[in-house]
């Protein structure tokens, strides 16, 4: 009905965010801005003012980027899980505490001589159980998720302290440490990357061809090839950069693999569709026969599982489990912030797990960059707060139904 020319900037922005790849644009811009600032603007400024002997130029060095990815990985794991409940319009405040409990138990188990992989499976089961239990309280008892998971946050913080009376435990188990230590040989990593890009391209082109044969509208070649090329460049660039410092760490491969699986489940299965439907209009979902309560429990189970995996990854990366690194620290807010900065709506019904990964990179880059410039903890908190506020503001403004009539 409305002509292209009459679309306001806001309408265009909303329309952009509704498209599959368009939803990545804001978070990619944020990432580019942060990297540009810390990686280019600051070093240039230093150069001009004559302070050449500075640490700042290292932001975009392969070594720092490697660290930055690893730092962001635990945040990203939790953010991916949290995204699933955000899609429903719920929230999970207990994810970091769940991760803490799982990591602490993992440390205790391997110390007691339980094999690493058994311990990992046990804590993954525990995390899922903790999520499911909270999901049941939300669904079947009808307590708002905010309250249930706030109680979970407090309770699990306490539980973690009970498991780790000293607040700290070293994890020396080789299997557990392996996630962060094992590196994929350069050539294998590159081959894997190429394989993924080719698979992505083939899937996309095949789908376009099928659309054609079934008489459905096709995307423009520009959009199709743009997606494939952008995706390919990003994947290969990341792998080359990581290779040029060390290699692709197993942990990142696992994180991307798990995210791909969850991404597929949330966008391409009836279960995923029901997550979006419940987030968009829970009553409609119920009336078309969706089992809203079970869907909610399953979503909380998933976030619990992801929290457990985050706990394992954290223990692996730090080589230790500490109260402040998980339950008692800033991990929770960073993870929720990552999901929201990525572009997942707090109002439910819109978002994606891939955006959570990018959001985690934004948070991770911000922390890393501010650390390098010697900013104080106070500065970091204030900048993070401002960025989060900006992301939520963008979310509120770009909600398609913010103005009900068009």
């Amino acid at each position, binding site marked *: 009905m409305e002509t292209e020319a009459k679309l306001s900037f806001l309408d265009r922005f909303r329309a952009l965010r509704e498209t599959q790849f368009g939803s990545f644009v804001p978070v990619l811009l944020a990432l580019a801005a942060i990297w540009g600032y810390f990686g280019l603007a600051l070093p240039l400024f230093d150069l001009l003012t004559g302070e050449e002997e500075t640490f700042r130029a290292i932001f975009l060095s392969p070594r720092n980027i490697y660290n930055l990815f690893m730092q962001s990985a635990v945040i990203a794991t939790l953010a991916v899980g949290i995204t699933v409940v955000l899609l429903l319009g719920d929230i999970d405040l207990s994810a970091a505490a769940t991760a803490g409990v799982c990591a602490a138990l993992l440390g205790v188990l391997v110390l007691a001589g339980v094999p690493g992989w058994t311990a990992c499976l046990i804590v993954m089961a525990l995390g899922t159980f903790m999520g499911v239990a909270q999901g049941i309280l939300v669904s079947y008892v009808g307590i708002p998720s905010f309250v249930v998971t706030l109680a979970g946050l407090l309770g699990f913080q306490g539980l973690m302290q009970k498991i780790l009376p000293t607040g700290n435990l070293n994890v020396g188990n080789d299997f557990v440490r392996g996630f962060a230590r094992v590196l994929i040989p350069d050539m294998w990593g590159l081959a894997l990357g190429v394989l993924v890009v080719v698979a992505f391209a083939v899937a996309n082109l095949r789908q376009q061809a099928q659309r054609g044969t079934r008489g459905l*509208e096709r995307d423009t070649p520009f959009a199709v090839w743009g997606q494939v090329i952008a995706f390919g460049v990003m994947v290969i660039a990341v792998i080359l950069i990581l290779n040029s410092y060390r290699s692709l760490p197993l942990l990142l491969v696992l994180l991307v693999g798990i995210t791909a699986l969850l991404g597929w489940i949330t966008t391409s299965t*009836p279960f995923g569709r029901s997550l979006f439907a419940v987030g968009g*209009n829970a009553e409609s979902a119920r009336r078309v026969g969706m089992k809203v309560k079970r869907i909610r429990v399953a979503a909380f189970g998933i976030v619990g599982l992801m929290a457990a995996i985050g706990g394992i990854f954290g223990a692996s990366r730090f080589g230790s489990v500490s109260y402040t690194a998980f339950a008692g620290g800033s991990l929770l807010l960073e993870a929720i912030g990552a999901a929201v900065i990525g572009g997942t709506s707090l109002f439910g*019904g819109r978002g994606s797990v891939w955006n959570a990964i990018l959001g985690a990179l934004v948070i991770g880059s911000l922390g890393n960059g501010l650390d390098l410039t010697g900013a104080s903890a106070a500065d970091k908190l204030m900048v993070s707060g401002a960025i989060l506020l900006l992301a939520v503001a963008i979310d509120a403004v770009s909600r398609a139904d913010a103005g009900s*009539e068009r």
Partner: protein
Amino acid sequence: MTSNKEMVGQAAPPAHLSVRGIQKRFGGVHALKGVNFEVARGEVMALVGDNGAGKSTLMKVLAGAHIADEGQFYLDDKPVTVASPNDATDLGIQIVYQDLALCQNLDVAANLSLGDEPVKSGWGFLPRLLRPLDILEMEVKARKAIDRLEVRTLQSVRAKVGGLSGGQRQAIAIARAVGAESSVVMLDEPTAALGVAQTRQVLEVVKRLRETNHAVVYISHNMRDIFEVSDRICVLRHGANVTTYKTSETDPDTIVAAMTRGLDNEAKNGN
């Protein structure tokens, strides 16, 4: 009142779907007080009543969206239970809700197959909820449903419902109910948001449903539309039956009187 009902019932075609003695309470509100209702195949049954008379509640009970506190359901005279939306769908009962029940964050195709998404074959080893969606099949079906309704203004089935006009949304809600495999289609004020031309289209859809031997329930406050499409008119008042008229044997004034004053117009019923 009951005898009156029986009389009309005898003259009417055999019921396809009928309910007896439906009771529904919402806390203190007694929304349905033992309502009887029926609809035959190849018939349009209008359901009228003042605001709050219980029309939508009755429809939701029939669609399994509300569970009746008491009452029996019969499909072709066989007792059936409708305890969930899935039960109703399985029995071939489809509904266009007054509030449309669409998900604004999903596109047209997704809304049209909501709750009954097609999945690709060959993934039988996975539980149905985790099999890959057949998105293209979804879009093809949606395209057909939309074309059948002749919603010309709708460009793409990939448009998000949140960005559509009220009339387009209403058309999608109707397409969803009409497109599915069904024997009973219930429409709760389907023309409330529509212009003249689109209202005409909906009335044509209703007539086509009758021709294809569907049992149609049509709720509206518009007497002209009701007298144009319906075969019988069931009047509800304060959550109870007033009576059921044959459309050809009554007139709008009688209906309005029955809706507002109920039993006061007993004398007119004889006509």
